[in-house]
């Protein structure tokens, strides 16, 4: 079985400050890891993904995430946030358990204040 835990339901931060959104996962099989973003009243879009290789993954809009196998984590970071980064961020894990299935975390609402 697979599960995803996003440790913070809400993260308020001031504009131009750094931010880290935390994600931990558990799985009995090898997995792919993803971060998706959902802007207000919009659908989900892919921010970045880890499939294999380098553990530091860069995505769109200046975001990056680091895969840490020993800590089973995939935290999302951005060195300087903008007002436009205000959105819901979902960590997800995909693995083969009789068929590929993607499980989403509960989401973290990032609120960037001026």
């Amino acid at each position, binding site marked *: 079985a697979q599960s995803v835990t996003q440790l913070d339901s809400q993260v308020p931060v001031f504009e131009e400050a750094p931010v880290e959104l935390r994600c931990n996962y558990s799985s009995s099989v090898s997995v792919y890891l993803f971060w*998706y973003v959902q802007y207000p009243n*919009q*659908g*989900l879009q892919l921010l970045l*993904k880890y499939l294999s290789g380098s553990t530091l993954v860069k995505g769109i809009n200046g975001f990056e995430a680091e895969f840490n196998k020993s800590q089973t984590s995939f935290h999302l970071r951005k060195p300087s946030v903008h007002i436009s980064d205000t959105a819901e961020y979902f960590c997800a894990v995909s693995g083969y358990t009789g068929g*590929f299935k993607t499980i989403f975390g*509960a989401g973290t609402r990032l609120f960037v204040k001026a």
Partner: protein
Amino acid sequence: SAVISQKPSRDICQRGTSLTIQCQVDSQVTMMFWYRQQPGQSLTLIATANQGSEATYESGFVIDKFPISRPNLTFSTLTVSNMSPEDSSIYLCSVSSVEETQYFGPGTRLLVL
């Protein structure tokens, strides 16, 4: 990446009625999925829509309540049957790439009165 459209984009329905949501993809895909996103919550997988065979439902979801069709590799429908206010939600269609990246449709916002 795939381009996915859904119809309707939103609807308001009376309890006890049924609504069929359509999902159209601009290319042939093997894997299609239906998710539910209840207000302020994350996505929950309802089922995997299999082409040419019955859908595979997740725990807590049954075919009588959420019948799914997948007549070909570019189209699927999800019906929400005998609706109650608890079914008010956003219903999302998605497809996955070879590398398991999910591409989502814009969603169908359903309100049941």
